[in-house]
């Protein structure tokens, strides 16, 4: 992308002044190299979002921004319902509340290396993954609604995990205001057998070694030290979330013009928060968030059982669970006052700074853990929310590496077997149902996650705490 279209505010902040129908500026946080590497569509999309009614402050894009649907992936935008603010199904994304959860272990690299293939096989058998993955858990209509209201709290009550897990999950495991009655039967049908599954695409379960610590003090609070072993789970709300996304996108496309909302791009379809469809989507989307939280809780339970079958009973407490496709009602400081805003984060992670009242006591002084997944076979990172991130982009940071190349191109360049063999020679064991999926997710198809994380750190969106290197990857 041509950097001359921006006003350079600092090394990592690039601004577009409002022009045309933009109500607020557009701001991208990235290094010059990252901006140059971004698709022109990111400029188009981040400025389109700035035209939506009721938007506060600016339309933001994170360092990993790329071409999304209406909103850029890596987009953050907050709306004030009292000023005609809108909610957008495309601004949340299809995989509602897709996110990352990291579990701590007491194991050493030696423990894992001694049982690496066996552990990979057990995890592969224990955690359903890939196209159309289903588990033995089948939900009836009543249980479905309880799950959609109760999220991870429901899962814990059903025996998948412990109560202490909940304080390490956003919203303590369940977001209020979910309305299962606003979720279609089609969406519920798609979810009936999908609880506790990873799905396909870029989702994964990884066993990782802490390779480097950048901030010793915060790392200590997070329970991380060099050569510690952790497990990271990346998945979302499966068929239910996808169907809610599709259902409401279709509805909003036809509803938006009735509210006088002119859309520069149909995918940007949005409706006022204070409208019937807006309220229904909010309730359905919150049900989708709870579905994702319950799903990751059950995957956690399967993971714990797999570890116990090899290492005996060993605690795998949750470090934290973040969601990166959401719209959440939060309090933020705007123009010197406090405001309740609906913050869309599409491919962006919440990154609340130290002292935030929504953080659990045990983490409040350090700031919220921000879990950043790399691509398969490359490093992942753990960051922490900063004081300044609250002032920059409503307490938000990047979510991952972001694709550098289309799946189409990746399939032309790589074969799954070759990718698996290359990673094996570097000591990384991959298990996947789909050789084609592995080729599409080849490490070379993604941007360098280190560059994205360094940009987030430099911009002070979040502070780097630890780097994780993969040992085992179960790929969706």
């Amino acid at each position: 992308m041509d950097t001359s279209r921006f006003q350079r505010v600092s090394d990592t902040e690039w601004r577009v002044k409002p022009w045309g129908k933009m109500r607020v500026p557009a701001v991208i946080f990235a290094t010059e190299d990252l901006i140059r590497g971004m698709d022109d569509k990111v400029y188009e999309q981040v400025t389109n979002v700035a035209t939506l009614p009721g938007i506060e402050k600016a339309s933001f894009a994170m360092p990993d921004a790329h071409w999304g649907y209406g909103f850029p992936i890596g987009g953050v935008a907050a709306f004030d319902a009292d000023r005609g603010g809108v909610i957008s199904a495309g601004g949340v994304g299809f995989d509602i509340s897709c996110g990352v959860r990291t579990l701590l272990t007491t194991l050493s690299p030696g423990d894992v290396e001694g049982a690496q293939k066996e552990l990979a096989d057990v995890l592969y058998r224990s955690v359903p993954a890939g196209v159309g993955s289903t588990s033995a858990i089948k939900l009836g209509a009543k249980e479905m609604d309880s799950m959609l209201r109760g999220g991870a709290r429901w899962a814990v009550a059903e025996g998948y995990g412990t109560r202490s897990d909940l304080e390490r999950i956003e919203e303590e495991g369940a977001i209020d205001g979910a309305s299962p009655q606003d979720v279609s039967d089609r969406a519920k049908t798609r979810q009936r057998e999908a609880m506790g599954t990873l799905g396909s695409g870029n989702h994964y379960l990884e066993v990782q070694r802490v390779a480097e610590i950048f901030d010793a003090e915060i790392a200590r609070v997070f329970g991380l030290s060099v050569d510690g072993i952790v497990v990271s789970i990346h998945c979302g709300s499966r068929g239910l979330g996808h169907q809610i996304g599709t259902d409401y996108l279709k509805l909003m496309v036809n509803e938006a013009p009735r509210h006088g909302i002119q859309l520069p791009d149909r995918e940007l379809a949005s409706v006022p928060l204070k409208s019937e469809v807006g309220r229904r989507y909010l309730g359905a989307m919150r049900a989708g968030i709870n579905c994702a939280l319950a799903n990751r809780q059950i995957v956690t339970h399967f993971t714990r059982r797999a570890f116990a079958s090899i290492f005996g009973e060993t605690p795998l407490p949750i470090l934290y669970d973040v969601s990166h496709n959401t719209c959440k009602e939060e309090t933020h400081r705007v123009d010197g006052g406090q405001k309740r805003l609906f913050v869309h984060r599409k491919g962006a992670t919440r990154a609340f700074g130290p002292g935030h009242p929504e953080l659990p006591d045990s983490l409040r002084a350090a700031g919220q853990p921000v879990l950043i997944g790399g691509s398969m076979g490359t490093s992942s990172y753990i960051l922490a929310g900063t004081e300044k991130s609250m002032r920059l982009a409503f307490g938000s940071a990047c979510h991952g590496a972001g694709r550098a190349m289309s799946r189409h191109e990746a399939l032309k360049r790589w074969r799954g077997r070759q990718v698996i063999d290359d990673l094996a020679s570097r000591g990384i064991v991959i298990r996947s149902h789909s050789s084609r999926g592995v080729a599409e997710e080849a490490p070379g198809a993604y941007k360098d996650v280190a560059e994205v994380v360094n940009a987030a750190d430099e911009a002070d969106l979040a502070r780097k705490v630890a780097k994780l290197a993969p040992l085992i990857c179960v790929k969706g």
Partner: protein
Amino acid sequence: MPWEHFPHAADMGVRGIGKTKNEAFEEAAKALVALTTDIGGVSPKEKIAVSLSAPDDEQLLVEWLDALVFEMATRRFVFSRFEVRIEGGKLDGTLWGEPWDESRHSIGVEVKGPTFTELHVGVGGDGLWVAQLIVDV
């Protein structure tokens, strides 16, 4: 080829090409299934009928591919043959396929749903109908 995939930064585009609008819709459905498995390996043993409607052709394509994703996900089926009849904003479709069998069917990616990005239904300069959109995978 009457159907093809086209690139998107994070996802995939599906495009059906045909002498008629109906044919272009049928081919677009094949392009979608081909993301999940090799359609050459799917026998059209059982048939399923769907009936849909939408305010315009483009939204009808979204509905049609949404219905296909739903049938694949909930029946755990893959399909290889399609028949579409569009008349006055209504679509009657028939899908032929068989239950998904991991031991026989090659595995690609799971399609989450159709999107409105790059959504287009129309006649090209060569007189052929095109029906296309990006699907989220």
